[in-house]
């Protein structure tokens, strides 16, 4: 056991563990609603929007850490745009997300290309794939703060959000502010994704949103249990993956996601047998 937990003797591993747990927990809980709303692609789209926002920040001279503060409002606006298209047109969520995702990513590439040789060097690879082991104490504070606030907000709104996603019309008749909640969920997801991008990268963040929620959906019959199970799976997979990646010397985020995928395969087999 001590061998297993030995990695946590290192400061960087302690920070990585806290960041992994925070990101996994908040992404899993939000993911239950995002997936149920038919917006599984949203995490991916917003992560690419975050890339656009960070690139704008870098172009304006900010460091990668500080560019997050430009990426957050940028990604939130993109999320609101997706919500507007969803509510006001006949387009499906994946189409709306796809359009905004392409726009934001293209904008990001454009602004990165506009930077001159004198500008600060940027490790684009770490931006795309993340580096959980390099989380600084400052970034960790932001990650934990955003995760806690988002979790509290989601739990406070859980009953109304769930009703609005089940049937917007019935929820509205019961006095649930459906439109406000939908926009709030999108903006909340945007903020969480931008912060998570700092640790798990643009390309892989959506896995933290989608996979635990998908596993839970296969295994349980109520949304409350799905929320609790997604949280447990997200957190357990993140902690096991982080420790395993240390011992196996494998990329951290990829190891976590592959563990989640293995659990998904098991859940799928179990769900098929149950039928």
């Amino acid at each position, binding site marked *: 056991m001590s061998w297993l937990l030995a990695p946590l003797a290192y400061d960087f591993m302690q920070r990585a563990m806290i960041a992994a747990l925070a990101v996994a927990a908040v992404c899993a809980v939000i993911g239950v609603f995002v997936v149920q709303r038919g917006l599984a692609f949203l995490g991916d789209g917003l992560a690419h929007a975050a890339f656009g926002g960070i690139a704008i920040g870098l172009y304006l001279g900010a460091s990668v850490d500080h560019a997050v503060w430009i990426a957050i409002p940028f990604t939130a606006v993109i999320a609101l745009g997706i919500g507007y298209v969803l509510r006001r047109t006949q387009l499906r969520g994946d189409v709306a997300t796809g359009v905004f995702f392409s726009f934001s990513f293209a904008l990001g590439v454009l602004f990165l290309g506009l930077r001159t040789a004198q500008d600060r060097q940027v490790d684009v690879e770490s931006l795309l794939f993340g580096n959980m082991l390099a989380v600084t104490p400052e970034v960790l504070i932001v990650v934990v703060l955003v995760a806690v606030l988002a979790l509290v907000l989601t739990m406070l709104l859980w009953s109304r959000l769930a009703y609005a996603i089940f049937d917007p019309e*019935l929820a509205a*008749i019961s006095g649930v502010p459906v439109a406000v909640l939908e926009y709030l969920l999108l903006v909340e997801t945007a903020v969480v994704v931008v912060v998570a991008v700092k640790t798990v990268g643009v390309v892989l963040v959506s896995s933290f949103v989608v996979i635990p929620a998908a596993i839970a959906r296969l295994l349980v019959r109520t949304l409350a249990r799905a929320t609790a199970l997604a949280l447990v799976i997200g957190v357990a997979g993140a902690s096991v993956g982080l420790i395993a990646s240390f011992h196996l010397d494998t990329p951290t985020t990829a190891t976590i996601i592959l563990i989640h995928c293995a659990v998904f395969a098991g859940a799928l087999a179990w769900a098929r047998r149950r039928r």
Partner: protein
Amino acid sequence: MTLAQTRPDPSLAHVLDVDHVSIAIGGKTIVEDVSFWIPKGEFVCLCGPNGAGKSTLLKAIMGLLPTSAGAITIDGRVGYVPQRKGFARDFPARAVDLIVAAMRGTWPASIRAEEHERARTVLAKIGGEHLLGTPIADLSGGETQRVFLARALVTDPTLLILDEPTAGVDARGRAELLELMTGLSRSDELAAILVTHNLAAVAQTAERIMYLEAGRLLCWGLPHELLGQESLTALAFGAGDHHAQPAGEE
């Protein structure tokens, strides 16, 4: 169109009063100067072609849309049974969750014993007690609508709004549902508005018929006054079609 149209007795207690109501959406008038009332316990069929303004009018009655003129007054609560297509069918939920959600106005994370019992009682009343713990995704069309009916009844409404509740339900399930709804209306003195395109459903259920077209209430009378009129029947249900449509084509 000049037809004999007998109104309800105005001295009876009104459950719903729609008084010169107009509704505009995006500057376009969808419902124009519509007035009617429904007395306690009356079962009304609201007919009209697609785009006539039926759903808009119902949404205004349920408080989901504002009126641009006139007033809507409801004595008591409205229970709503929607078409089956409106909800997320893959949502992880059981029938009891849906019914308790209507009781609370929010989705239940857990259900108290008294809420479970109340949901069971309401479902039992309409012959669906066995459906209580069934996942919504596993319910048949008729069973789904039975659960939605229980969901509407659990709030003790005085007026039921039934928006094409039998659309997509097979013929046997449709007949059972219609019988159930008219039975409830009679036994509980529950007023109801049934929106349907199915002439057989109108003939089976209606105590009064309203016909809406292009946002205006053209007819409002007793079934024998209106269903006998070839012109109205042809307008509302298609020329020459005096028979029930096949299952699923309502």
